[in-house]
């Protein structure tokens, strides 16, 4: 009873107080619900975008803004893109895939046929072998988008190559596949049969919807963990053979010239790599105090087992937290709490995967690959923090 009296008194007193305070006025009704808008857009306040371009309008692409990325998935509209003959517009009702060669039966599949097969769905990163090639001779990128923006991560859904190849019956002498795209340049790459039968698939969907045109609509190859170029878009043909084809893109673009003038062929696996996305070059710290260091780690050979972060120029390293889910051949978000003391320093990350491989330094990379061997650059990235909080891309 006494308690009841006490609360009534409190209620009276707060009522009196509220009458003396002017509430922030309601913003009133928002935009009317327009039935003609069937696909939502971003807030006009969100400006992050790809940097997109091409010298000749047809070969080129766009890089992902990693600096404000969150979690591990890249929105489909921000996924990096590289093209060799522009972006074709393909009517899925007319698209066909031919599989032929060292198989029991040569067959053409429509999209409808392909979507009748049992589906598979996986989160996988895709990274262009040239991600960071501009950094090979020295730090150049002004932001992490420019240094590392040729990697992205999506949930891909499609049909397993193993299911398709078993459907046709693969001959015993089959060792390689040629995958060919339906762009103007008919991009082709040779895929080892063991990889095709292990975990490769043809994706028709990305992040819960059909592929975007610049991601290969209506059908693309996903070769998990292998260099982006092998994940042939707009795929129209798979030929089963007994040898690799050594097409233009596998010999002049993506093989790795070593310091001894030998050329490493078959450098398909995108080895373990990580980068701090925030804070990163182009940003400025607003005085000493708490910051969360956040970044991405990934490995084309397996699963990220740890990411270590150094905030003192590589002298000491601490294990970062790995945000779930941590999946094979997939971006993994890492975070680490950090109190900046306001002194000049250099921060960096390095990852180790479950094969035991640790991301190398530039000095280690230069022993593997020569001056024109700038592809597959997975070296540790350093960000320098000046006393005024300005962050820049540095080598040491």
């Amino acid at each position, binding site marked *: 009873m006494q308690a009841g009296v006490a609360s009534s008194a409190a209620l009276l007193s707060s009522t009196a107080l509220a009458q003396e305070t002017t509430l922030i006025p309601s913003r009133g009704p928002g935009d009317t619900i327009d039935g003609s808008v069937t696909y939502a857009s971003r807030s006009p306040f969100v400006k992050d975008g790809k940097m997109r371009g091409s010298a000749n309008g047809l070969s080129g692409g766009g890089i992902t803004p990693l600096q404000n990325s969150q979690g591990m998935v890249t929105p489909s509209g921000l996924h990096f893109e590289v093209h060799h003959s522009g972006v074709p517009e393909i009517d899925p009702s007319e698209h066909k895939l031919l599989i032929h060669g060292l198989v029991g039966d040569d*067959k053409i599949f429509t999209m409808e046929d392909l979507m009748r097969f049992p589906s598979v769905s996986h989160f996988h990163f895709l990274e262009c072998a040239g991600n960071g090639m501009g950094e090979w001779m020295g730090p150049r990128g002004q932001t992490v988008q420019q240094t590392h923006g040729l990697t992205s991560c999506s949930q891909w859904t499609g049909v397993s190559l193993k299911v398709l190849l078993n459907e046709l019956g693969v001959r015993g002498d089959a060792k390689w596949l040629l995958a060919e795209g339906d762009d103007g340049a008919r991009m082709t790459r040779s895929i080892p049969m063991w990889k095709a039968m292990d975990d490769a698939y043809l994706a028709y969907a990305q992040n819960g919807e059909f592929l975007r045109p610049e991601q290969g609509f209506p059908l693309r190859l996903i070769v998990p963990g292998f260099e982006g170029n092998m994940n042939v878009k707009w795929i129209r043909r798979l030929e089963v053979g007994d040898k690799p*084809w050594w*097409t*233009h893109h596998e010999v002049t673009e993506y093989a790795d010239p070593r310091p001894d003038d030998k*050329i490493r062929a078959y450098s398909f696996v995108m080895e373990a790599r990580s980068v701090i996305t925030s804070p990163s070059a182009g940003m400025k710290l607003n005085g000493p105090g708490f910051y969360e260091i956040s970044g991405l780690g990934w490995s084309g050979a397996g699963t990220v087992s740890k990411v270590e972060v150094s905030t003192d120029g590589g002298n000491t390293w601490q294990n970062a937290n790995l945000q779930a889910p941590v999946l094979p051949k997939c971006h993994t978000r890492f975070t680490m709490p950090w109190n900046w003391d306001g002194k000049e320093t250099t921060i960096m990350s390095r990852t180790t995967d479950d094969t035991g491989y640790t991301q190398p330094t530039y000095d280690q990379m230069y022993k593997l690959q020569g001056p024109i061997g700038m592809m597959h650059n997975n070296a540790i990235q350093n960000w320098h923090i000046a006393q005024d909080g300005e962050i820049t891309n540095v080598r040491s």
Partner: protein
Amino acid sequence: MSVHKITLIAALGATLAFGTLYASAQEKYGFGRSVDADEVARYDGDIHTDGTGLPAGSGNVALGAEIFEIQCALCHGENLEGVRAMGAGSMHEGRRDIELLPYATSLFDFIRRAMPLTDPGTLSNDEAYGLVAFLLNETGVVDDANLTLDAASLAAIKMPNRPNFIIDPASRFTAEDLKDN
């Protein structure tokens, strides 16, 4: 236990009771349409390293030089130096050096399939043979200004850099993968 796991176990149970749920090499879904060799040929334009797929026709250095001037020089430069503003690098040095190529078939395949940039797939077989002859002579790979190429002679070219292509442990490939080449 999640509903999905229960469903999966039920499905496995059904599989054991009624036979395989998914197709094996013996059991087919039956989707897709079988095609004959003529239909495959309309799709299959690639060239194998042993020359399989090279078409009839021939072309010499002079024809190649003429076509290069009309179709290629704008981006690749009069002397194969590459025009940066057009996105093309040198064919004399760096990653696109013609001398780095392990097989001449890669060059023919790419030119006929993907070039010229604005009108890919429109070169005749003779023109493509001529361009390969021109490029090999111009870069000194084959020092013969009268070089004429056709299917047999192109397949027979031994590119000097072929032995430099190797597989090392950094590629995570094994000797088993290497022996196929």
